[in-house]
């Protein structure tokens, strides 16, 4: 696990060159358009200049290294504690050390009997609804 190669390489220099050339051409087209104003093909040059600039910006945005984030979404886990005598039930959040059929997890508030963990399950979330 120690000295291992990075997962991926940086952005390709070839792509950077293409983007740079597009930007240079776009700036050239824009300057020709501005110089030609108000006669000749000024609008056409401006149009080409702006669209090339937009295209190169889009390409740059696409190649930008976005660090993907990985979040281990914690599930909502419910523990149901039940009284074996009177059937009283209490649902609470899962705590480390809980397991199904664990006994003596507190006294029943109704009959003082020792309660047992009856169930542990993951509560349904949006992802589960398939």
């Amino acid at each position, binding site marked *: *696990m*120690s000295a291992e*190669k990075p*997962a*991926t*390489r940086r952005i390709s220099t070839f792509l950077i060159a293409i983007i740079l050339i597009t930007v240079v051409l776009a700036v050239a087209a824009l300057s020709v358009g501005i110089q030609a104003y108000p006669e000749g*093909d000024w*609008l*056409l040059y401006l*149009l*080409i200049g702006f669209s090339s600039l937009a295209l190169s910006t889009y390409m740059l945005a696409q190649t930008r290294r976005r660090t*993907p*984030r*990985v979040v*281990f979404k*914690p*599930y909502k*886990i419910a523990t149901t504690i039940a009284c074996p005598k009177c059937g009283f039930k209490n649902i609470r959040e*899962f705590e*480390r*050390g*809980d*397991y*199904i*059929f*664990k006994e003596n997890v507190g006294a029943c508030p109704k009959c003082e009997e020792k309660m047992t963990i009856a*169930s*542990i*399950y*993951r*509560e*349904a979330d949006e992802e*589960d609804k*398939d």
Partner: protein
Amino acid sequence: MVIPQVSQGLLGGDNIIGWILQIVWLLFFVVFMFYGQRIQLWILLRELQSSLLRLKLIRDEGRKMALSTIKEIGKPQGDPTEQVDRFLEYVTFPPETMDPAGVVWKLEHILDVRDVRFKDEVKLMAPEADDSQTRNLANTLEAALALNVIYKVIRHFYELGKKTLSYFIILQVQMVLPLIMREAKAYASALRAFTYGQPIGDGAGALVAAKLMNKHRKRKIAKEMVVAKVPIEGRTAYVLKADGPGGNIGKPGEAMKQIIEENKGKISTIIAIDAAQKLEGETPGDVAEGVGVAIGGPGIERYKVEESVLKHKIPVNAVIIKEDIGDAVSPMRKEIFDAADVAIERIKRILLERTKKGDSVIIAGIGNTTGIGQ
């Protein structure tokens, strides 16, 4: 004024813009003719690259989680990082199959050695952990190891594809990548479940057995298995499952073989309950019935049962609870928990239909028993 010029240019009109556009079109044509596949390769490699980054993050997060749990529960004297990293590089060599006779026992031996070695390593890393926590930590590390293996295999194909620029090497990884990413995410969920000792979907069979044997006297049988003699519908049922609540699958095949021998083969039927892979479109928690030995894994335990039932001509029934790989290794869904009661009703019906009063039967709950007592 402008619109006609643009259209003239696009259609190859006789002006400078038209010339430029024609040259651009020609360039595009030539580039795609000679470098079309190369461009496709770049696109595939970029997709692979982004998945690889994500896999690396999942793997690193898993390693971090395993390390922090070991530190929290095991309270080691020194820093366990080096030991954990060594563990994540662990390899197991399957036995040689050129002469397949006896390969089951060879595989069993190798897996036993692996199991003992894993637990010993965990005990060294986490000296303060009790038996149940040791088993959960071993499972946590196994999930982290699986994530490491997935990452390294995909990285191997990515690097190989980049070096050789072989379309087919890259394409075959790209085709299975969605399934691999799904599996990696499932292992990531499993890590959290194991660190907290929560019941997982794979434990559905063990849950059914636990519900049946709860409040009955249990005894240990085979390796890390428990059995209870439970009267159900006038029959004597030997209900067995792996010893919980620590993460454990035990040796159900060995346990069933022992019970059959104890009863001199006089077992009317065997019912094995296990979680099984659902197909897309099926509902998780659906219960289905069938025949055969419903025991997953490398096949050793299934082989043992098949040998015994063949010798004594015992019918074998299966009750399966359907779930996908993600559900199998992540905390148990409510639908799967509720399916345990449906499975119990099915078992009772099978007993009534296929056995007589006073018969002895075996009911085996298969699966990882993490977070499930008995």
